[in-house]
């Protein structure tokens, strides 16, 4: 596929992501804040919906095309030490500036210009690592790429995913808010008259 066709499709997919993220109010920085103040249900429900559908879809994609399926993402560096460390910097950063990557992009789209500054500030942080630290740290990275089923002897990826998707559905069901029955108009009116 020519690069410009691919770029156009990427832009269109991005537009779809942006629409859903804005309408749904998704931001993991806010979500973490909700968890820390003891109100985790909203973000957990949103995360579980994403996990169940995306996880099942990614696992099933391997049956449609053997090149797809579950694959490690990013790089496991230094046996995971750098991932943990990087996560801590990232977590601190999103909590300070008030938006994860999706939240930052969403806020820019909503007209919140402070997030343009936040986004531009990624540049010195990334440059420091890529041009300053990487040349010294790269021997320690010892990159490995693993998915969870690789750590469980005899486990097949789609079996592990099946169990997790079922667990996710169960958790999602438990997290649903209780439904109250709507008051029937007739009874309500009768109640009002009796009350008088």
């Amino acid at each position, binding site marked *: 596929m020519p690069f410009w066709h691919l770029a156009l499709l*990427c832009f269109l997919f991005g537009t779809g992501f942006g629409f859903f993220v804005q309408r749904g109010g998704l931001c993991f920085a806010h979500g973490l*804040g909700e968890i820390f103040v003891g109100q985790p249900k909203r973000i957990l429900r949103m995360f579980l*919906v994403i996990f169940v559908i995306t996880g099942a879809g990614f696992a099933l994609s391997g049956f449609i095309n053997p090149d797809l399926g579950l694959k490690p*993402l990013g790089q496991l560096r230094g046996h995971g030490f750098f991932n943990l460390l990087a996560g801590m910097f990232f977590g601190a*950063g999103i909590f300070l500036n008030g938006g*994860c990557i999706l939240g930052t992009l969403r806020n820019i789209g909503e007209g919140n210009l402070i997030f343009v500054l936040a986004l531009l500030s990624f540049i010195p942080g990334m440059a420091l690592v890529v041009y300053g630290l990487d040349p010294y740290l790269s021997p320690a990275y010892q990159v490995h790429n693993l998915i969870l089923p690789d750590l469980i002897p005899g486990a097949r990826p789609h079996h592990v995913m099946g169990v997790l998707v079922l667990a996710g559905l169960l958790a999602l069901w438990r997290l649903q808010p209780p439904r109250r029955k709507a008051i029937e108009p007739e009874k309500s009116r009768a109640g009002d008259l009796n009350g008088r």
Partner: protein
Amino acid sequence: MERKPWHKNPQILMAGFALLNVAMYLLLHKFWIGGSSFLPLIGKLGPERMFLLAFIVNLGVIAGSLISAVSSGEFRLRWPRGRQIGRAVFGGVLVGFGAALAPGTCTTAFVVGLPMLSVSSILSVAGIFLGAFLVFCLTRGE
């Protein structure tokens, strides 16, 4: 509790996001990348211009949010003010540092990495919780 219409129900909207995630993987053999997508800003386009394509996806995310915000009446131009600026800049530097130190360490870990069962994402998410909790504890009084 009254049921929200589908276009305002966060779970249905997240289902739409997730279906797009899967469709993009099936059609383009690519998925949404968060942190590394900003590497073109420091001159790194990635193998087969992968990071550049991811950057284009993110431009689309901004456009999609803009369309949604305008159509729902939520668009409002807000200018940066005083103390906000320092926090945004310092936070942004930390985000950039973290995202580059271990590729895949960003929001991608939540929406793509965990559903891929990627071990690097599981560790990244653990780190994100720790880092965010540390800042939460330090700034709780503010």
